């Protein structure tokens, strides 16, 4: 990709949560949810944040939307630093960044009809001039995501999980956003429905030149949907780069083990013991010194505990490992 424009950029984005003791007294300990994450999202691409639970991928996604205030660092959208924007200024931004959530059951108000749900962003942002116009746009949106417009007066509980996720997507599309943050949008769905939603997201992206930040733990899904991936471990980025290249030749040991852990659909290719990563994810309250992955890393050397690896450029890729590219 040459001549690509950066749509959104983060610089050393950090989120630390103070840890409350049982009595409600703030202690000095903090949870390091996201620590100094920098990346760019280019226009028209899908960048996926991948990692296991607790790696900070969802926190990061929410920070971009300013649903969670970052402790430190900056978020630049279309070249503007939106980190200090007031709520009023953010309203402008929300026309351009929207979000799709994981749980289609929890993210739709059960007392609102589908028409109201999809029309809500149109009304709050006063995009349409008349009721007829709003209604027309809602029908158009329903058609786009594959829900029959006749169902406009139904309530969310009358729909299946897959259809609800379509409603969530229609809501996100209502304002013609440039960037959609998709937080595990297919994790709660059955495989046959999952593939329908993934194909829909891909079609919509092509049609409307959308940019996606796709958050997922499912490496199969991520491979299918993304152009580039950003692998995270315990609040830090391990590796960022082209999806195909990373899957073909992971450079960070964590990426390698993560990919090997996925149960293969080929019964003749059974996982070998040495391909399995031992141990558990360390605590985010007291992350290991130096490289945060070193306690689980079979290749760890002394230097890994002493110094934190910096992001190194290896070809087109960025890798945070002392031994990357060697």
């Amino acid at each position, binding site marked *: 990709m040459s001549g690509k424009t950066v749509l959104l950029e983060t610089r050393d984005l950090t989120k630390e949560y103070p840890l409350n003791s049982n009595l409600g007294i703030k202690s000095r300990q903090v949870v390091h949810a996201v620590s100094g994450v920098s990346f760019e999202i280019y226009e028209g691409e899908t960048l996926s944040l991948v990692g*296991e*639970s607790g790696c900070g991928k969802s926190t990061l996604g929410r920070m971009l939307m300013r649903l969670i205030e970052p402790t430190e660092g900056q978020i630049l959208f279309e070249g503007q630093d939106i980190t200090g924007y007031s709520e009023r200024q953010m309203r402008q931004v929300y026309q351009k960044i929207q979000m799709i959530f994981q749980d289609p059951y929890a993210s739709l108000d059960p007392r609102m009809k589908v028409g109201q749900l999809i029309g809500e962003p149109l009304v709050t942002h006063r995009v349409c001039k008349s009721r007829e116009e709003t209604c027309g746009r809602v029908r158009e949106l329903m058609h786009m995501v594959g829900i029959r417009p006749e169902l406009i007066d139904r309530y969310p509980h009358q729909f*299946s999980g*897959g259809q609800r996720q379509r409603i969530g997507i229609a809501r996100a599309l209502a304002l013609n956003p440039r960037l959609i943050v998709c937080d595990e949008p297919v994790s709660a769905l*059955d*495989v*046959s*429905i*999952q*593939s*329908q939603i*993934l*194909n829909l997201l*891909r079609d919509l992206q092509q049609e409307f030149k959308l940019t996606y930040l796709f958050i997922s*733990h499912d*490496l*199969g*899904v991520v*491979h*299918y949907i993304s152009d580039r991936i950003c692998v995270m471990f315990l609040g830090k980025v391990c590796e960022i780069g082209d999806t195909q290249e990373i*899957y073909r030749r992971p450079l960070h040991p964590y990426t390698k*083990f*993560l*990919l*090997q*852990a*996925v*149960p*293969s*659909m*080929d*019964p*003749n290719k*059974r*996982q070998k*013991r040495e*391909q*399995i*990563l*031992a141990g*558990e*994810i360390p605590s985010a309250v007291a992350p290991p010194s130096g490289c945060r992955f070193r306690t689980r890393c079979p290749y760890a050397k002394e230097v890994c505990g002493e110094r934190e690896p910096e992001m190194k450029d290896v070809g087109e890729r960025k890798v945070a490992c002392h031994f990357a590219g060697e």
Partner: protein
Amino acid sequence: MEEALLRIQDLHTTFYTRDGLVRAVDGVTIAINAGESVGIVGESGCGKSMTAMSVMGLLKKPGKVDGGKIFFDGRELTAMPPGEKRRLMGNKISMIFQEPMTSLNPVITVGKQVREALLLHNRHMSRAQAKERALQAFELVGIPDAKKRYGEYPHQLSGGLRQRVMIAMAMVCGPGLLIADEPTTALDVTIEAQILHLMKDLQEEKGTAVMMITHNLGVVAQFCHRLYVMYAGKVMESGTVKEIFADVGHPYTEGLMRSVPDMESKERLYNIRGMVPSMLHLPKGCRFCPRCQYSMARCFEEEPEMYEASPGHFVRCFLYEQGKGEEMP
């Protein structure tokens, strides 16, 4: 042929709801041999968990087994007095669940919970002996620092460790059959790989048969010898993992396999059209036919039986009425 360890024969489990009868399990026949691992695959609502719950006798109202027989080790579970059945459950047949937190008691230490399971089924065992055995079980399932963990409460453990505790509890009495209902679905992928390997080791070492209920075809490919594919309360296909993954029979199984992104190709994913039918209004004829790309006029009228496509490989589809014969169009 040898008598199977678990034989489920034409099982019917029905939920008597206000809106009508929901036949969650509608004539399911499954056999699991000793020491074998068998996958039960399907999407949510296909009846795979309800089949397991029926075997365990854990159905809650308004659900009821109202037809069919279940045999374990030659004895009929469905005709057994409750007391005798209770002695079998957790002892000779045990079960682990998807979310270990909800199956563990939050106010009792994990060690004590495992010990209780032992004492319940072994009247003559002393507490000290039980503790000894429980600790051995902890070590067996790879819980690091077993002595310390023994005295901890479930909330102090990570998801992976909790699932290990559940496995220790399930295995401590040396069951002949372990029913695992989505045991790794709630876990991260590196932890999932650890747990699957642990289960496989235990199975090979102890010769325990495993009934693996899952929606993840990868887990089946990695873990099981044979599989049953369920759809809307019925078994649609059964056979060995090797055979089905190499030469899939039923259009539904084929659709499922092609819907999963495989980390190799970026080609457009296959979609099974439509969605799972409501169990209250099942289509006439084959229950998959409205979504099937090969459906014929006949499929909408008659219900297909299980036809033998090749030795040991059964498919509930008219395309296989004359064996495998010709290839699918």
